[in-house]
């Protein structure tokens, strides 16, 4: 074989085992990126033992229509990049709906193989699929596999080699019939020269034009006469069928699919897995018990992540970092390294990156539990149960889990939005999640409530959490009727059968998230902490400061302090603490302790009354609750949002909201006081 790398596109519906197959094919030889210009994730990797094959994992989609971003990027990828081969993975327990996408892929006339996944379940339930007949009816090689059990994949790779060696035109499956058939063929003749010139598969273009696909009309640059002719051809078909163009095309594809599945498939009732799933759902989506069970699960997730288990790993990890820091610190001392460099390494790099690295165990544990919930199919049920509530703020049930995770830590919560379909839903969830009070803010609340509200601590804490939720709801409500007006993704969601997750897939997912987080920790966060260290260590003449009161940070704090006067706390130390809070929210308390010279953070409560009144303290807490999240969360936002401008707008919005709400609290409070 010629030593040229072949690009293989992996494409299939959601829940058909596509990611599992991708992981089996590539192992850890994969890297994650984005499709150019959009926030849709693109994974690539070379196939194990087949380094000449590069697989691109395309988004899980049900059709190649031009409605969702995922569908559009997939189409563009196929038409522009022209992969050498397409693997269409289909769920054998759910042939009919999976074949709908297959038929559209066949229109593209790429070399193709079909991976018939979950054949073990079909056999296990005593059902039957005649693979040979199936293959000859579609004129495409079909390989029964089980991605979960890693069965049949080697055979498929052999088959792929054979297909790739064949040259020449890909046979064309003419599955269309009747009036639609006539229309497709007439349009084919009309557009053939233009489609060939543009390099768009003509058969695919014709079908899409029958469907009335605006993107295809633009791509072909049809002129008036052609558009007019096109319109007439379709009108004839519509009149004769008494159906509109979209329905006619879909219906015709399904008729072929019905015919095909009658020929190749023998089913006797539902499969074992489907029957088992129904039994699980009797409890898990139960009318009265479903939601309480979900909250129990979430409570379990939180307990595990932020409770004893999570803290054990976190503490152990932080212990390692601290030991390393202490060692480097002493070595630098012994070597007599310049004091400023010494401080940069210890107070800047180790302290900054170290504090962020401390999140790593939490992120791994949280994503481990979430991928269990996701891969078993439970997450779809959560979306089903919670949709009614989320709809009011312009989101769908699918956003519930990322948002709930925001109570733990905004970083993994924002990272988790990547699995949401629809850019609008994704962005709105990213924007709203930081309003939900993360666990790093608890120490701030603890110190302030101890100092000012010792008799009503719980009530004050509760009011803050509730305030965060209320702000998220209010923002969602405002956004959906202003800047995020766009159409939400239709909530038409498959509830897949419950399945055991695949260890390799879960492992790779964790590896992915950890790598993603660490890359950011050593880029954006690294730079961020050095900048903050610099601001804290030097004065405006770039002299090394010993008294933190004269640092650049404190100078900036003093400059911006008047901005907070209407909120009740014009003291520069409060402003500086808020600035420091951008590194990590815990830093708010530690900075206050440094600036008030109490030395120990636990003593801060005693000096706070000299800076705040109870009312301004509450206003400060409200501001802390809502203003821009820490640099780690900002880095995650930047990553998932896809550009600097948007992500800066997000944090400006959050900070603006914080200012307004704290202002209202203080002013209205003063009025009554």
């Amino acid at each position, binding site marked *: 074989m010629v030593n040229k790398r072949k690009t293989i596109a992996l494409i299939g519906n959601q829940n058909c085992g596509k990611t599992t197959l991708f992981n089996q094919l590539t192992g850890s030889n994969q890297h994650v990126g984005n499709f150019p210009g959009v926030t849709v994730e693109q994974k690539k990797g070379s196939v194990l033992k087949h380094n000449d094959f590069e697989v691109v994992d395309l988004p899980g989609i049900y059709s190649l229509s031009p409605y969702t971003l995922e569908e559009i990027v997939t189409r563009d990828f196929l038409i522009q990049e022209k992969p050498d081969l397409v693997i269409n993975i289909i769920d054998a327990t759910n042939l009919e709906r999976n074949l709908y996408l297959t038929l559209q892929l066949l229109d593209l006339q790429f070399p193709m193989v079909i991976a018939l996944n979950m054949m073990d379940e079909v056999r296990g339930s005593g059902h039957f699929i005649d693979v040979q007949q199936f293959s000859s009816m579609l004129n495409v090689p079909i390989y029964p596999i089980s991605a979960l059990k890693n069965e049949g994949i080697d055979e498929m790779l052999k088959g792929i080699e054979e297909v790739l060696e064949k040259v020449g035109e890909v*046979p064309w499956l003419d599955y269309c019939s*009747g009036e639609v058939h006539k229309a497709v063929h007439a349009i084919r003749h009309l557009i053939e020269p233009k489609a060939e010139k543009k390099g768009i598969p003509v058969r695919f273009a014709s079908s899409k034009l029958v469907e009335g696909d605006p993107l295809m009309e633009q791509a072909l640059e049809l002129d008036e006469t052609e558009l007019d002719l096109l319109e007439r051809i379709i009108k004839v078909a519509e009149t004769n*069928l008494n159906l509109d163009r*979209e329905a006619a095309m879909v219906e015709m594809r399904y008729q072929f699919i019905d015919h095909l599945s009658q020929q190749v498939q023998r089913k006797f009732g539902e499969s074992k897995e489907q029957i088992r799933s129904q039994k699980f759902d009797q409890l898990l*989506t139960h009318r009265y018990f479903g939601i309480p069970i979900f909250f129990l699960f979430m409570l379990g997730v939180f307990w595990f992540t932020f409770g004893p288990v999570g803290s054990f790993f976190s503490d152990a990890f932080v212990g390692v970092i601290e030991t390393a820091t202490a060692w480097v610190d002493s070595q630098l001392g012994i070597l007599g390294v310049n004091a400023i460099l010494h401080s940069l390494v210890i107070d800047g790099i180790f302290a900054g990156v170290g504090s962020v690295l401390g999140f790593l165990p939490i992120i791994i544990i949280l994503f481990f539990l979430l991928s269990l919930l996701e891969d078993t199919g439970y997450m779809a049920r959560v979306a089903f149960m919670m949709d009614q509530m989320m709809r009011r703020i312009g989101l769908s049930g699918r956003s519930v889990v990322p948002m709930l995770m925001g109570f733990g830590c905004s970083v993994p919560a924002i990272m988790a939005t990547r699995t949401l379909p629809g850019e609008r839903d994704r962005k709105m969830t990213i924007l709203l999640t930081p309003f939900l009070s993360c666990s790093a803010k608890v120490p701030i609340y603890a110190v302030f409530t101890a100092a000012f509200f010792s008799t009503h601590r719980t009530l004050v804490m509760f009011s803050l959490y509730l305030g965060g939720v209320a702000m998220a709801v209010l923002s969602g409500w405002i956004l959906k009727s202003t800047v995020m007006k766009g159409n939400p993704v239709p909530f*038409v969601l498959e509830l897949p059968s419950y399945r055991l997750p695949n260890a390799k897939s879960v492992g790779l997912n964790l590896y992915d998230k950890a790598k993603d987080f660490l890359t950011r920790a050593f880029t954006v966060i690294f730079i961020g902490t050095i900048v903050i260290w610099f601001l804290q260590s030097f004065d405006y003449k770039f002299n090394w400061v010993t008294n933190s009161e004269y640092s650049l940070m404190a100078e900036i704090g003093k400059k911006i302090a008047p901005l907070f006067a209407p909120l009740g706390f014009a003291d520069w130390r409060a402003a500086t603490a808020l600035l420091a809070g951008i590194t990590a929210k815990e830093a708010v308390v530690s900075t206050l302790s440094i600036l008030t010279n109490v030395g120990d953070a636990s003593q801060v409560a005693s000096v706070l009354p000299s800076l705040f009144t109870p009312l301004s303290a509450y206003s400060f807490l409200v501001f802390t609750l809502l203003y821009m999240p820490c640099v780690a969360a900002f880095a995650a936002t930047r990553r998932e949002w896809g550009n600097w401008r948007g992500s800066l707008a997000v944090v400006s919005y959050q900070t603006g909201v914080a200012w307004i709400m704290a202002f209202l609290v203080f002013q209205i409070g003063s009025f009554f006081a």
Partner: protein
Amino acid sequence: MTLAEIEIGQQVLIHQVRGQGALRRRLLEMGLTPNTSVCVRKVAPMGDPIELRIRGYSLTLRKEDADLIDVCEVCGNSEPMRGHGWRHQHRHGGKFGE
């Protein structure tokens, strides 16, 4: 009668999908085409959305969207369109992949 109105467990046939744009297209593409048998299996705890069983899999959609889908117990004569059926054309020596 629409899909939002039928009782849990009742098996019906889809007559047509109304509405327009992305939603209608998505509903059709998920297999909710005329003459397909469908049954409502469950209602979510808060009363909306609903869970359907169609073409051998489970699908959930909101009641307001289900309201766009006209159904009938036995669609009988009201079959919207036949005659361009696949079988008619290819029964006589029709070959795949000409």
